[in-house]
């Protein structure tokens, strides 16, 4: 269980005007700017949940993740993760959590992954029999068994991320913080990481807090999403609810039995557009009008095929992230 009450973080950032004069001046006097990376945030995450944490760059996602992982001290507020205050960094807590950072290599660069895992086995005090079994299982699922003896620096980005995931999960943590685990990976590697995370979550049910700029990560893995904007939570709830609330129109594409030239410009009060070959009719219809519109469509056109698409969830999240009203 993760429980936050008014958790906030303010940084002081050094500022310097461009040019040599400003550089010399900054040797004697510095100008500082206060940055509210995270404004007071309160929320709860329950056992077994996998929650997506999204927001634009600088929204406060990584700061929040780092505070919960005990890396960064908060400016104010309280946090309770599995009964521990993260930034006290008690070993009992650190043995039950993991932090995976897609942008930072946490393994030992010059050593083969197998050596890194052996080191972690001792650090987490994992019994040999369990360690061997878990490593075999994780390496098997992620298909990296043959790469365990290759120095980490010689692995591709995708392979390295898989090794990072193994390192993070060897001790079966109860809480896993994933900060952009698929960043920079190709589509195949992204899919493979997502599939693995889903499988792992289904089997062991740790709390997972996933930060990602790839909406597919969020929509495929998370039922609940927290959206941050400029350090504040602007949405915290079910992904499905977000779709219901923010999905205003649906995109309808009808394929006609034969090309139609000179068709009507609108239907049931909705403007229509036609494809270049006049074979398809398209319209953006308010979601509540879809039944009425499709009925009219069948009455007025000879329809061979019909597709109704909702707006992509990624676009909806992006809209909320960038300035839709708070929906807490």
């Amino acid at each position, binding site marked *: 269980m993760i429980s936050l009450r008014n958790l906030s973080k303010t940084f002081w950032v050094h500022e310097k005007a461009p040019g040599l004069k400003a550089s010399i001046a900054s040797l004697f006097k510095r100008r500082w700017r206060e940055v509210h990376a995270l404004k007071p945030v309160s929320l709860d995450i329950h056992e077994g949940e996998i929650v997506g944490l999204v927001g634009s760059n600088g929204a406060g996602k990584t700061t929040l993740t780092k505070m919960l992982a005990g890396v960064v001290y908060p400016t104010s507020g309280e946090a309770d993760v599995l009964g521990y205050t993260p930034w006290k960094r008690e070993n009992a807590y650190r043995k039950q959590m993991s932090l995976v950072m897609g942008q930072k290599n946490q393994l030992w660069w010059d050593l083969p992954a197998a*050596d890194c895992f052996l080191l972690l086995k001792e*650090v987490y005090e994992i019994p040999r029999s369990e360690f061997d079994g878990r490593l075999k299982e994780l390496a098997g699922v992620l298909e990296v068994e043959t790469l365990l003896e290759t120095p980490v620096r010689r692995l591709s980005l995708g392979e390295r991320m898989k090794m990072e995931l193994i390192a993070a999960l060897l001790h079966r943590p109860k809480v896993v913080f994933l900060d952009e685990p698929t960043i920079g990976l190709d589509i195949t590697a992204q899919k493979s990481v997502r599939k693995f995370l889903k499988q792992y979550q289904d089997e062991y049910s740790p709390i997972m807090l996933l930060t990602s700029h790839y909406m597919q990560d969020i929509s495929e893995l998370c039922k609940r999403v927290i959206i941050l904007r400029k350090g504040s939570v602007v949405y915290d709830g079910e992904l499905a609810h977000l779709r219901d609330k923010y999905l205003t129109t649906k995109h309808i594409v009808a394929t006609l039995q034969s090309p139609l030239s000179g068709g009507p410009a609108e239907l049931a009060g909705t403007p229509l557009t036609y494809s270049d070959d006049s074979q398809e009719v398209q319209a953006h219809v308010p979601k509540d009008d879809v039944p009425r519109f499709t009925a009219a469509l069948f009455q007025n056109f000879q329809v061979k095929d019909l597709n109704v698409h909702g707006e992509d969830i990624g676009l909806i999240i992006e809209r909320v992230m960038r300035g839709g009203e708070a929906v807490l």
Partner: protein
Amino acid sequence: MNLRAAATHTGLVFLAETKRLISYRVQFWCELLLSTVVELLVTVAVWTAVFEARGVKQIGNYTLGEMLLYVMLAVFFAQATRGSGTGTFARDIYDGSLTKYLVYPLSVYSYKLGTYLPRTFFAIIGAGLSLLGIALLGDWPDEVTLSLFQMTSGLLALGMATILFFLMLFCLEAFAFWVDHVWALSVILNFTTMLLSGKWIPMDLFPQWLGGMLLYTPFPYLLYFPVSVFLGTSTEAQLGQGFFVLGVWLLVVYVLSRVIYERGLRTYTGVGI
């Protein structure tokens, strides 16, 4: 964290870091062998020239043989106390890599000491082989005898000195929490240490007023003291007093490092390259 776990972690990191150092073969041999040989040759040449130029058989309490043995040990012991991986703690803070040590159930001290000790280990082996080589070649100065007590207490002093210098560097590098770059400070500390710890000139050849003053600083205990203990040139009283002062400095610098580190962590953002 208990002491046993900390020692185990240090041992494991030591092994991992040793493997890492060995994996870069050219760098390993150049750093370990070439630089040591060059330094030894220069030091031996300088002192031989000084003795010849002055036309004396003894300077202070040192014959040429004793002096060469002293400076040879000083070269190896300096490498031992200086350790490996210096500067990496400051860099970890600067580029945000410190995060990984904060997340693992592992003391940063254990980890960093583990990365520091491989060079100490290789330097001690180097010193041992060199002493053996001198003895086998028949160049051992008659006036120097080595006893088991001298060697064990000398190595104990060297071990304590290594940890003391590790903690001094830890304090200095921890300033990276506030000032980002501490390279210049680190160079100053290294240079001051080499000068005041008796690496180039044994401290009993320093002017008396300076030697007396330095006894209250940690510097003589980093190099001169372990070498003197090893070569048996310290009296029993100096030995006891030296270990006591070394112990006090260890405690003081450790407490200081904890205060600086804990305060620094409050400013740590984990942001970097």
